[in-house]
């Protein structure tokens, strides 16, 4: 089992590495049903008494207790569903009430500017929560070119993720179908709060 550890690449500061790791974890859990391998790695996590720490600790406990099959059923009920899942994790939906709306168009323009493309064989609109987490991580790590400076990260966050991400994660925490994904919601909500606060400090 080879795990790519790019978080410690020389020019990434400790806190930026931790931010990118959190975005990567959220992206991995939200983009498809988690594999047993991913669940096992999550099981090994721990956290302190902060909101984020408690969320991660709860996630580790639930990940240990769940099965790959149960996680897949839950993922599908939440995000895929019959017709639609319980939640619609898209910026356009949260900001306008409809899919494929202006927030998606704005995001696509911004992606072109930043050199980001939708992966091949992915047909989901790009303004879904998992892709936005991947984009934040990629901007921090420089996956799409050179690492994005703080101003670029802040503007991307404040435009595409900040205005609705917290609401989505809060919905995920409370969704009827959430067991494994309830603590994912707690982690996401706590982390985006930290991000918002941190970006405010440089504004």
């Amino acid at each position: 089992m080879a795990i790519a550890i790019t978080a410690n690449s020389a020019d990434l500061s400790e806190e930026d590495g931790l931010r990118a790791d959190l975005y990567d974890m959220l992206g991995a859990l939200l983009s498809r049903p988690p594999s047993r391998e991913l669940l096992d790695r999550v099981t090994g996590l721990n956290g302190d008494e902060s909101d984020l720490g408690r969320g991660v600790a709860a996630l580790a406990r639930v990940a240990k207790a769940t099965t790959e099959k149960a996680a897949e059923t839950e993922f599908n009920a939440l995000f895929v569903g019959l017709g639609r899942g319980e939640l619609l994790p898209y910026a356009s939906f949260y900001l306008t009430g409809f899919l494929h709306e202006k927030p998606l168009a704005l995001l696509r323009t911004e992606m072109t500017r930043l050199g980001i493309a939708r992966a091949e064989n992915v047909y989901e609109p790009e303004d879904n929560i998992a892709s936005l987490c991947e984009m934040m991580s990629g901007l921090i790590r420089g996956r799409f070119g050179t690492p994005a400076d703080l101003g670029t990260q802040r503007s991307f966050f404040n435009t595409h993720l900040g205005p609705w991400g917290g609401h989505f994660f809060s919905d995920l925490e409370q969704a009827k179908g959430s067991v494994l994904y309830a603590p994912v919601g707690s982690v996401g909500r706590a982390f985006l709060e930290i991000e918002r606060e941190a970006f405010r400090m440089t504004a």
Partner: protein
Amino acid sequence: MGDKTANRRDFLKLATTAAPVAAVAAATGTTVQAAEIEEHSDSYRETEHVRKYLDSARF
């Protein structure tokens, strides 16, 4: 600006070490990728697939 950046770094260090999740997920998400740069040559394009293949073949 220097002070602000330092404050931000201290804040983040404190807040995110609450729950380090290093290496839980590979840092190579699957839904987005770097946009491919249009090469002028029409004979060969190093697409993401080609790059992956070359990586795996250790060229």
